[in-house]
């Protein structure tokens, strides 16, 4: 339920199961600087009202980068037609300590996958943690992009 906006970016309430989310969704064009700036206002005005009851934060983004994912050779013993299909090439990195459930407050994942038929890859990042600040947000955006550049040709 969208109820307000910060500089044109939607702020909404969402009830899901036993937990709820107060979110700000960004409208393009988006940069790490814009995200960090809006986050500060969001935290000071909106999150402050729920400060005592917040159990975690989620930051997520999608981005498109030019290039193709490098062809990764699967190990010989598991080589199958499915694994060598170029349509299924992609990389999913999950933090080893992540608790994978919809109500988890400790979940970190990056997915890098090709856009079929285009010389581009899609980067998706989901980062749930008990702490989040402007510096972490900037670092997540920059390091995700750098990691992607290492994985594409």
């Amino acid at each position, binding site marked *: 339920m969208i109820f307000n906006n910060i500089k044109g970016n939607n702020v909404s309430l969402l009830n899901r199961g036993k937990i709820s989310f107060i979110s700000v969704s960004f409208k393009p064009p988006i940069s790490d600087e814009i995200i960090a700036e809006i986050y500060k206002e969001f935290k000071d005005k909106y999150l402050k009202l729920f400060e005592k009851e917040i159990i975690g934060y*989620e930051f997520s983004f999608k981005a498109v980068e030019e290039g193709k994912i490098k062809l990764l050779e699967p190990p010989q013993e598991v080589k199958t037609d499915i694994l060598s299909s170029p349509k299924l090439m992609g990389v999913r990195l999950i933090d080893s300590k992540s608790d994978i459930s919809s109500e988890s407050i400790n979940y970190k994942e990056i997915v890098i996958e090709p856009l079929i038929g285009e010389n581009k890859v899609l980067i998706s990042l989901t980062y749930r943690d008990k702490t989040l600040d402007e510096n972490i947000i900037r670092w997540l955006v920059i390091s995700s992009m750098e990691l992607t550049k290492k994985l594409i040709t």
Partner: protein
Amino acid sequence: MITSASISGILNRRFVNEDVANLINAGLVDKDLVNLLLNFLATKT
């Protein structure tokens, strides 16, 4: 190029009418949206 992004605070409970009142008192809800917001909480909880 980032095409979409969101940041959320996660609460250990669901939103209730009192939360809407707090948001209104803080001047964070447009008057036009108050009824819609209360209706949302009444029907989706």
